[in-house]
């Protein structure tokens, strides 16, 4: 436990009582047997703190993962727990006070990437990350999602379907512009297609090259594919903000677009939470099983490399790979990137704790989109920096733009001599025609 450093405590936001009640009700609405079992099982052993980058780096006990859902656990026990009547009768778990809930904004957003590392160490098998996501629903419904940037983006996404308020036309134009700039044939809004790749807004803004890369590879594969502007944005900032309505709208958009063109496979871009949402939650949000497969881009590349539809040249390069938590630990797609790097002949130096037990880059779960969370992100980045430097290689590949952006910012802030690059673009740059 490194020395406790004074982390910046944001001004306490005090919502009105009605909002608090609404927050609790919306949290409770999500609680099923799994969440209830989790909340009932906690034995307060404190081990989850030892797995969380924010506690480990700051030593601040408030960042103990299970502590982050304390007010909502109280509400659960009072309202629908097995002994709710007793809690109420004896007033055991007092109502969550407005001030209390206000203080929790920093705990549930700034200091939690929903990376699930705490869920791996928990001896009781509690999926804390899942509970945090449900708690964020409550916070959002109480108007307590951090306004600066994450909240704003979620609002825009809720209204326009894109966190940056892009209209379908603007998105279509951008795609064609990228296509012409990179000399790649862009299939956009075609009526029928087997594969529908979706787009992460971060890529649109900061890494447009990845759209070109996807197109280039799909053309290389000779697949029938098309972007669909009527459901393009995979980022789902609403999910990380806790806006269930926004989250559902985005998901519904993508599903309906895919159904419209009879897609057999929807490919999620280099992004963590979008994969978690589409692969594991979309069917539940949509209400029935999806008639198409959902693959993360690395899974598609690995599949293509395995069955020969994708052929690449060898690259004489040594590098390490940073696993995005939602893809490997939470998503079960740890093997795909290794298959790709192996196919490319990259001399891979795995970081310590690579794969399932990786340390989060510190930007996931919307934290990258919260300005005041910068100091916390820097602290989390220190772990990742040490791990990469320990491998002694110059390049870090990753297949999540969120991680890539966070590592980039972290690197710039400490003028780090490592390059952070996209695995997708590496494949696209080394296709063998």
């Amino acid at each position: 436990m490194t020395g406790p450093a004074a982390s910046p405590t944001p001004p306490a936001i005090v919502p009105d009582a009605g909002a608090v009640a609404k927050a609790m009700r919306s949290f409770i609405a999500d609680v099923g047997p799994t969440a209830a079992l989790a909340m009932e099982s906690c034995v307060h052993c404190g081990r989850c703190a030892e797995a969380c980058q924010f506690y480990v780096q700051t030593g601040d006990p408030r960042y103990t993962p299970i502590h982050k859902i304390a007010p909502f656990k109280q509400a659960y026990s009072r309202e629908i727990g097995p002994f709710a009547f007793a809690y109420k009768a004896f007033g055991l778990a007092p109502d969550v006070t407005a001030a209390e809930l206000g203080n929790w904004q920093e705990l549930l957003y700034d200091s939690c990437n929903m990376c699930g590392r705490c869920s791996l160490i928990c001896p009781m098998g509690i999926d804390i990350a899942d509970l945090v996501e449900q708690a964020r629903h409550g916070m959002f419904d109480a108007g307590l999602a951090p306004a600066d940037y994450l909240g704003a983006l979620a609002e825009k996404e809720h209204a326009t379907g894109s966190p940056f308020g892009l209209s379908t036309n603007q998105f279509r134009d951008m795609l064609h512009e990228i296509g012409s700039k990179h000399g790649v044939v862009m299939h956009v809004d075609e009526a029928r297609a087997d594969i529908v790749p979706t787009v992460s807004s971060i890529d649109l803004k900061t890494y447009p090259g990845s759209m070109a890369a996807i197109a280039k590879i799909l053309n290389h594969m000779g697949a029938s594919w098309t972007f669909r502007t009527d459901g393009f944005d995979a980022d789902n900032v609403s999910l990380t903000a806790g806006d269930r309505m926004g989250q559902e709208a985005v998901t519904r958009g993508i599903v309906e677009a895919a159904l419209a063109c009879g897609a057999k496979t929807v490919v999620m871009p280099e992004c963590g939470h979008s994969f978690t949402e589409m692969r594991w939650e979309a069917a539940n949000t949509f209400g029935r099983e999806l008639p198409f497969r959902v693959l993360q881009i690395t899974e598609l590349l690995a599949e293509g490399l395995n069955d020969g539809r994708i052929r690449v040249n060898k690259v004489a390069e040594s590098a390490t790979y940073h696993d995005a938590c939602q893809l490997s630990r939470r998503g079960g797609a740890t093997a795909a990137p290794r298959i790709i790097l192996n196919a490319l002949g990259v001399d891979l130096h795995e970081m310590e704790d690579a794969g399932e037990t990786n340390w989060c880059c510190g930007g996931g779960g919307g934290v990258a989109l919260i300005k005041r969370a910068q100091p916390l992100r820097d602290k989390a980045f220190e772990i990742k920096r040490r791990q990469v430097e320990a491998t002694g290689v110059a390049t870090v590949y990753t297949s999540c733009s969120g991680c890539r952006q966070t590592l980039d910012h972290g690197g710039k802030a400490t003028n780090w001599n490592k390059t952070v690059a996209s695995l997708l673009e590496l494949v696209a740059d080394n296709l063998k025609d």
Partner: protein
Amino acid sequence: MTLLEFARGPALQVSVLIMIAGIFWRLAGILLLRRRPQLAAPRISPIGQIGGGLSTIMSRFVPRRTFWPRIAVSVVLSAVFHFGLAIILLAGAPHILLIHQLTGFTWPNLPKGLIVIVSGMTLAALIALLIRRVGHPVLRLLSTTDDYLSWLLVFLPVLTGILLSGEALAEYGTLLALHILSVELMMIWLPFGKLMHSALVFAGRGVMGANFARKGAAT
């Protein structure tokens, strides 16, 4: 009706029934809430998911190597306590006898001297765990009255068990009555507090293991 007859008679009956009713009440109260649908295509078969659940139940007994340095104290202390308690209960002659009378199963017991040593270690681990719970900032923040009450209701049976094996402080009958009464208090509180984890731990780990195995994710 001496204290011992009370402890072994009505008190034992009532506390066991309260515990059973409480456990089933709490489990039903949890497991019968509305299930959120799981419609996404699983990565492995239902059998695989059950296997994932079972493997997690076992795997969580020993934390992953990478976590050890930071939680070594917690792991060692709780291991000494839990294994100590298991040895006392499963290898102590009077306990085997109790189980034999209730179920008919019996097996050889360890000598009493060894059990007393193990009980001493278990007690020491419990005390260390309490000191840690009060001293460590994270644990102090998380702990509620239930933590301390549950600790006490586990500490007393071990303490009275040791005093009973010593048969020195008071007469055997009194010490045995105190030991049984302390176990009964623990049994009554079990379903309503933290001790319920003795039942929930398997359900919790199993559910997580199954859910994560379904996603092909780390269990």
